[in-house]
């Protein structure tokens, strides 16, 4: 049996109330009032598609049945990847400290990239080439200021682990349609999405291609759509989303919520995000159909196994939805997404070049947060050392690699620095003591200075550390997220 073994979600902590967007930009395009309900998830200034995908994958790996060492492939799906050349999936794999023999690939250019990646992963397992594959998807798409897309688009990540042991949802089959349907386009290097007339997108796109794929899937695998527990398909036009279900003869409860009021349309991540939300509610025996839509469609049929009843571990989508903070500023959103030019000051301008050879040499330490543990005295230490930092020990070359990214820590001390450059001042950083030993200085993120305390628990989160615009380098590292802030 091949199917989904685990899932994980990443909805960024910040939410932007759409009415606030309308209040800021509605003067220009009053039509956006029609989409001004609810809120959308907004990536923090240090989050992007790679970090959200990694965060979802970490959540996915929190399931007790999964060991990180057993993962032998990572497919990353996104239309908003930071690099055109330099494998984004390999960056995520090194952050996850996956095996060197891991198969990695990026899936991009279409909003159905995630379902294509999922099918690719399933095929890899079917073929026997791989045993456990991670599929991670994330998007952080931009609508221009005052556009409907600005209202629709939200930022999120989702991850699935597929394998053949401890399956919670068995893969039963799929159909795919390929169509060069140019409803919306984004040229290479462009930042903003551009679409053709919305009526045409709805009538000729969503409401024809999605039902077509679904009907074909039902025919091919001989099931009645009415017997499916949840049908999952994207369409950020609310009325059209409901109409598609009606046309297929589905009850309202059979159609998985688009999460528009909570997250927004997270692009290529969205089919998986909705699938995870459905899996969280699913019972043994439930059939789930998920459609990835974009320049055609992929439709996949899953059936939940008995194992889903006892599945625990990840935060998932529902967990992420509870952990939120109001961004409360449209201007802050535009700065976080680098939509408007900002006076960064001299500290914001300064960016020393990244020595890529050093980054390669130190990749496990930097990207994987892997330090060392002294085999002589047992002290864990970060950054990695050759001579033990414990003054009582001092053993030479008796170190073994030791991963800190999965260890909880506590705040030893901290400050909120108004002088250090940050897109969200003050820059909050401090010293973290890790459970099981080890200590290092780190940036903190997703927190308010006023609410953190010495001794508070933190967990590690992979984030963008800096962006060197001059040389096109995205620097990534780990930050500490104070845990009480998540509640």
């Amino acid at each position, binding site marked *: 049996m091949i199917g989904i073994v685990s899932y994980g979600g990443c909805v960024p902590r910040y939410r932007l109330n759409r009415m606030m967007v309308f209040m800021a930009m509605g003067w220009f395009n009053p039509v956006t009032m029609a989409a001004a309900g609810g809120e959308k998830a907004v990536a923090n200034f240090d989050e992007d598609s790679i970090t959200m995908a990694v965060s979802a994958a970490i959540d996915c790996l929190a399931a007790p049945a999964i060991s990180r060492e057993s993962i032998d492939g990572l497919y990353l799906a996104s239309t908003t990847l930071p690099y055109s050349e330099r494998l984004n999936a390999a960056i995520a794999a090194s952050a996850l400290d996956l095996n060197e023999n891991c198969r990695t690939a990026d899936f991009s250019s279409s909003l159905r990239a995630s379902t294509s990646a999922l099918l690719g992963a399933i095929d890899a397992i079917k073929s026997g080439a791989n045993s456990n594959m991670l599929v991670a998807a994330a998007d952080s798409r931009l609508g221009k200021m005052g556009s409907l897309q600005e209202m629709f688009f939200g930022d999120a990540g989702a991850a699935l682990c597929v394998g053949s042991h401890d399956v919670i949802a068995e893969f039963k089959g799929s159909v795919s349609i390929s169509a060069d349907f140019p409803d919306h386009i984004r040229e290479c290097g462009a930042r903003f999405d551009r679409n053709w007339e919305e009526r045409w997108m709805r009538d000729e796109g969503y409401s024809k291609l999605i039902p077509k794929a679904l009907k074909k899937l039902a025919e091919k695998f001989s099931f009645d759509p009415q017997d499916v527990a949840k049908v999952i398909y994207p369409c950020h036009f609310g009325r059209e989303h409901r109409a598609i279900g009606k046309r297929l003869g589905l009850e309202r409860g059979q159609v998985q919520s688009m999460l528009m009021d909570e997250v927004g349309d997270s692009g290529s991540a969205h089919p998986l995000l909705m699938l995870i939300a459905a899996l969280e509610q699913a019972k043994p025996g439930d059939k789930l159909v998920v459609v990835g839509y974009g320049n055609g469609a992929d439709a996949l049929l899953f059936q939940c196994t008995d194992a889903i009843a006892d599945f625990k571990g990840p935060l998932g989508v529902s967990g992420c939805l509870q952990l939120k903070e109001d961004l409360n500023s449209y201007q802050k959103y535009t700065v976080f997404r680098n939509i408007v030019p900002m006076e960064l000051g*001299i*500290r914001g301008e300064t960016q020393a070049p990244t020595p890529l050879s050093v980054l390669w040499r130190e990749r496990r330490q930097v990207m994987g947060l892997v330090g060392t543990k002294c085999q002589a005295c047992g002290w864990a230490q970060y950054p990695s050392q050759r001579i033990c930092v414990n003054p009582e020990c001092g053993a030479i070359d008796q170190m073994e690699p030791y991963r800190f990214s999965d260890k909880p820590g506590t705040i030893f*001390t901290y400050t909120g*620095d*108004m*002088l250090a450059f940050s897109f969200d001042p003050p820059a909050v950083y401090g*010293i973290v003591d890790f459970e099981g030993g080890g*200590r290092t200085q780190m940036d903190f993120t997703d927190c308010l200075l006023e609410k953190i305390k010495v001794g508070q628990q933190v967990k590690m989160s992979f984030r963008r550390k800096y962006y060197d615009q001059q040389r096109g380098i995205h620097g990534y590292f780990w930050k500490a997220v104070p845990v009480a802030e998540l509640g």
Partner: protein
Amino acid sequence: MASGIRDKVAIVGMGCTNFGELWNKGPADLMVDAMIEALEDSGLEKKQIDAAWLGACFDEVNVGKSAIPLSTALKLDFKPVTRVENFCASGTESFRAAAYAVAAGACDIALAMGVEKLKDTGYGGLPDFGTATGSTNRFIFPNLTAPGGFAMMATRYFDRYGLSREEGKRVLAHISSKSHHNGALNPKAHLRREVSIDQVMEAPIVADPLGLYDCCGVSDGGACAIITTPEIAKSLRPDPIYVKALQIAVTSGMEAAHNSWDGSHVETTCRAAIRAYEEAGIKSPRDEVSLMEVHDCFSITELVTYEDLQISPRGKARDDVESGFFDHDGQLPCQIDGGLKCFGHPIGASGLRMIYEVYKQLQGKADERQLSDPKVGLTHNLGGFPSGSVCSVAIFGK
């Protein structure tokens, strides 16, 4: 322990420029100005200098690398000259190198110079540390600043000794207010205005919990010392000042990476102080030291330094601060010249500026600021961050 440097070298001349926003002076001007005062003070001529050391930190935006800027500014005529750098302890490092050269008999008369032109960096505060910590650390270190690094020690100190943020800030405010009071009397200081405890408390936050007046200023300056053997010193003037101890301690990385460091003290200060007192033969620092110039880059640094130097018991520096023990008219005046707080902190110059004040005080030539008959003066010059630092402790006497 080796025999040390106690009474093996003497200072026969010192010079110190005014510190401040010296827009019209370049580093060469500052070095020449400091040297002229030191030569006049010593009665020596420039050609009698056998060797020189230059302490400077931010070379990329200041004097530049190597010793060439010093040798060309002073026209040292192909003498042996070396540049030293050890973050904010660079000034004392140039002094240490010169003192050791004389003590070793490698030369008779050595000059130690420290200079920094921070106002040419374009920054408020010190420039970015991104390139100062090596190519690996920049991938992992937070984008931290000096105030942030020391603010973390304040957070930890308050937590450890049960001080509320308000209580802690008030103790620190007393320290800054005291130094401003002293600096107001010093014509060479950059900031010469009294600041009340309430003003310190209410100032904008730079790095929580440290506010604007908890931080030293950013300024330009230069200072230098001429060092020679005790025999030559006695032939030159009746009141040379002798080096009693000169110690530095450099982090092993233990504080930042080993969980045993408590975060509310500076380990290098403790280690350097123990060795310095031993070298100088001091048994009870609290009773034997007459005045101190400590590295008050931030008010919290001065507070923990009182404890690290074994002047105040652990956790009790607050009592000494509040009782006026370190005030101008207290038992052990600290920062009698106004400290970094009022002079600002031109990195390479600060260590030598501290020695300048102790030298003048021990000679009885500190004008309005003069203390009555001080016997032993201590300088403390700290570079880096509490979690990883280089510290010098130097002791001087008659």
